[in-house]
């Protein structure tokens, strides 16, 4: 028969797609849409990995990030951590093989999820500059530091080693990666500077030392020595499972009966529940998992849906905690009011999650603009696609007018405030692989709104209080404006001496203020306020050594504010 059918023609064109080709065509999915974002994604993946590694090894992280301009649109990125290091044999695979990692196959709260991140950056660097990734890693002071120069074999998706050596390194343990890539650097919104600053806010146990291409060094010191609770790994909950995954789990399990498979591979499934699932699915409990057909698997999935199963354990989530979140906020934003909340754990599609929210109000923040929104997922700042994110949507859908802010319909609230929302989960549902926005799950949005409302109520009472104090200030200045007139009129009427008129002024001022002061004890009672404000000052002073002139000015402002506040406090005693 003819070997020249259309099908034959088509077959000639069909071949393996190289990983490099796939990457080039889909770079936007991975966060390499443009040069600016490529730089951000590279640093983000590097820092995520460094922090995940340190936390898994219970080491207080200290991460050094350096970005050096090498030429036009060409930058060198160096990320160095004090983590546990990587054993020699694993180094090439971790950095030079896409989709290799430890995090995809388990359910636990971590920054990285898919095992694409850092190797994608290596791939990007290699495609844009042709230069290899330079890796140094040491696992123990007694062991040598291993040095590799690697690139990814784009045809086979396997690491290819250009150079291998042991080197002298001043770190006892840790990992350092150096990449040359095409990129562009800018300051401001969505910049590396902002990303690292926000990372410092949600990771108060982390110290980040950052040198930007302008050779300015910014240090974000840790504010707590307390490591976050180690995230526990959990088995999947039946409610969150999808057909394809269920099929592959059935195929790869070592258990020989459906009953054993259900009780051992899932969380919250005991013998009774397993039996009930099988009953609802019309399957025998001793069915061999490997023998399950697609139809039977579908029946099993239906059976799961029709069975009442208790929610997954939530102790596997490690939130930042309201207190530390506030500390982080205080570190970065000089505000008058901080309020933070950690919600109890909830579950969406079988995945436990925790929502935390915080508001920093007033102070140095600009009042004539929309609220600044800071979004975080598993402690990682989300800087892109704000509009598409469930967090933004939830903020917009919250009615802020009731809390004393102005808000147009369908818009963010308006005023001098920053809203922070953090979602921690064993599996954060991002809208894409580049992990920039969170999907609109109703369970998640409901929790976000509840958290925002809790903060909003505290905000409302503060705004009210502030208005009262402002009114009081106005009244007092009003009084002071007219006291001299009362005194001068009395002086003229009674031919008083100047000294007597002065006395009238002083006594009258005292009497009026004494009266008002008594009224005011309710209006201003924030004993913490001054104390906490002082803390900001201290943080400011530490920064002062390194900070650029603009920040120094801010510190000065902070100090003046403090003085004002103290005056107010005194007046009410």
């Amino acid at each position, binding site marked *: 028969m003819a070997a020249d059918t259309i099908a034959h023609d088509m077959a000639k064109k069909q071949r393996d797609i190289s990983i490099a080709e796939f990457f080039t065509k889909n770079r936007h999915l991975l966060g390499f849409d443009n040069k600016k974002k490529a730089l951000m994604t590279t640093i983000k993946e590097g820092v995520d990995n460094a922090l995940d590694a340190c936390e898994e090894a219970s080491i207080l992280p200290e991460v050094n990030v350096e970005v050096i301009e090498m030429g036009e649109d060409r930058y060198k990125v160096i990320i160095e951590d004090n983590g546990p290091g990587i054993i020699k044999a694993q180094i090439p695979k971790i950095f030079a093989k896409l989709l290799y990692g430890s995090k995809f196959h388990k359910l636990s709260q971590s920054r990285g999820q898919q095992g694409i991140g850092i190797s994608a950056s290596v791939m990007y660097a290699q495609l844009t500059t042709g230069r290899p990734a330079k890796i140094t890693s040491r696992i123990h002071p007694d062991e040598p530091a291993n040095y590799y120069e690697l690139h990814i074999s784009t045809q086979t998706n396997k690491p290819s080693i250009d150079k291998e050596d042991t080197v002298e390194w001043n770190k006892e343990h840790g990992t350092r990666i150096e990449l040359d890539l095409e990129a562009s650097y800018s300051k401001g919104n969505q910049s590396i500077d902002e990303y690292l600053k926000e990372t410092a806010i949600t990771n108060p146990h982390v110290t980040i030392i950052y040198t930007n291409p302008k050779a300015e060094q910014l240090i974000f010191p840790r504010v707590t020595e307390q490591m976050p609770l180690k995230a526990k790994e959990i088995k999947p909950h039946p409610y969150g499972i999808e057909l394809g995954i269920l099929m592959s789990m059935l195929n790869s399990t070592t258990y020989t009966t459906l009953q054993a498979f259900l009780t051992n591979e899932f969380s919250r499934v005991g013998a009774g529940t397993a039996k009930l699932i099988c009953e609802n699915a019309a399957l025998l409990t001793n069915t061999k998992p490997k023998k399950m057909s697609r139809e039977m698997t579908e029946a099993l999935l239906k059976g799961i849906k029709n069975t009442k199963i208790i929610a997954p354990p939530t102790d596997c989530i490690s939130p930042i905690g309201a207190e530390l979140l506030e500390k982080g906020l205080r570190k970065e934003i000089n505000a008058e009011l901080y309020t933070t909340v950690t919600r109890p754990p909830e579950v969406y599609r079988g995945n436990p999650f925790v929502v935390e929210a915080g508001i920093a109000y007033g102070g140095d923040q600009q009042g004539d603009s929309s609220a600044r929104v800071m979004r975080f997922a598993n402690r990682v700042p989300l800087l892109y696609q704000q509009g598409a994110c469930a967090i933004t949507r939830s903020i917009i859908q919250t009615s802020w007018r009731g809390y004393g802010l102005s808000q147009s319909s369908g818009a963010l609230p308006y005023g001098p405030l920053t809203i922070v929302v953090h979602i921690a989960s064993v599996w954060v549902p991002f809208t894409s692989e580049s992990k920039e926005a969170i999907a609109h799950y109703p369970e998640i949005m409901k929790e976000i709104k509840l958290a925002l409302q809790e903060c909003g109520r505290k905000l409302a009472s503060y705004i009210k209080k502030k208005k009262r104090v402002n009114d009081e200030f106005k009244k007092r200045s009003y*009084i002071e404006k007219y006291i001299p007139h*009362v005194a001068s009129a009395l002086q003229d009427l009674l031919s008083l001496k100047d000294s007597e008129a002065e006395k009238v002024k002083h006594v009258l001022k005292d009497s009026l203020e004494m009266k008002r002061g008594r009224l005011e004890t309710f209006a201003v009672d924030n004993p913490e306020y001054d104390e906490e404000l002082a803390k900001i000052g201290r943080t400011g002073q530490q920064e002062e050594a390194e900070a650029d002139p603009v920040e120094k000015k801010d510190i000065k402002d902070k100090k003046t504010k403090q003085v004002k506040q103290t005056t107010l406090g005194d007046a009410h005693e």
Partner: protein
Amino acid sequence: MPMSNVLDEIKKIARDIYETILKKQLPTISMPIRSLKNVTYDRKNGYFELVGKLKERTLTATTIKTFAQTLKMMDLSKQLISEDDIATKREAYYVSKNWGEARFNEQPESDDVMDDIEAMMMVNREQIGFIPGEHGGAVAGALTVIDRDPDTGKDIRIDCTKMGSGAYSVPSSVEHLRFETDAKFVLAIETAGMFERLNKHKYWKKAQCIIISMGGVPTRATRRFLRKLNDENKLPVYVFCDGDFYGYFNIYRTLKVGSGNAAHINKYFCVPNAKYIGITPQDIIDYKLPTHPLKEVDIKRGKDALKNDPFVQDHKEWQKAIKVQTSMKVRAEQQALAKWGLNYVMEKYLPNKLKDQKTWLP
């Protein structure tokens, strides 16, 4: 109250305030409440008397501006009295422009403070050096006013029959005036227009009377002037107003028994014996006068009078008049008589009214 006593009183109030402040207390000034709610009417005395409800103004954050202004105004008054000078209400308002932040923004504010001081000290505003800006009434007819030359102190005689087409104008202070007259009554007229007509045709000669134009609500001086004519020369005072609630109560009632706003001086500044001979609701019917519909504010004014005015509450005739007119829903002006001819008012209306006391209102 003699001038020197006024001066002492001002100083006494100021000293009380000063001493209270030195005692580390907040000073309070008190004055009668200036409203109809704080007066009673007794037909025997014939004028509104203060009940004595006081309003207290303690120096606080909200009152300190007014408090300062009151003291400043008292000081201005003290200067005026010591220097034997006067200031009009408008001038006093302009003087305040020197007071920095304590200045008045509008004249009604300064008038109000002035009225407060007057009431606080229970004196007439002329006694504390302030005079009204507006004109006194115009006078014509069988009257000779004996005034004094301010420089020489000699008598000046003013014959009100010899004012030509003009009229004698009531000065701001009338206490020193003396009168010589052979008139039989005084006719007080609401509008200048009607006064002009009666004066042009020398109605006062024919009726052997004195005519006075009040120009709306009569000034205190005009009220006092009428009172003196009534007291000293025993002349009856007849009032001729428009047939509406403004004419009845704002003008006639104020002239006869005084006002709630300056109740402390009513005793001297009213004419309890005055009678209303002007347009009444019954006149509107009897003379088939052309009318205008009553406005919302007119009806409200009538209702207020029934509810709050002690004078109306004491006179059934007035209550009936209000009810009749409210149900007619119309009002008529003095000039409406011109329907029957321009001089009908002199030839028929006034003679008829003067003859028949039953057509009057008390």
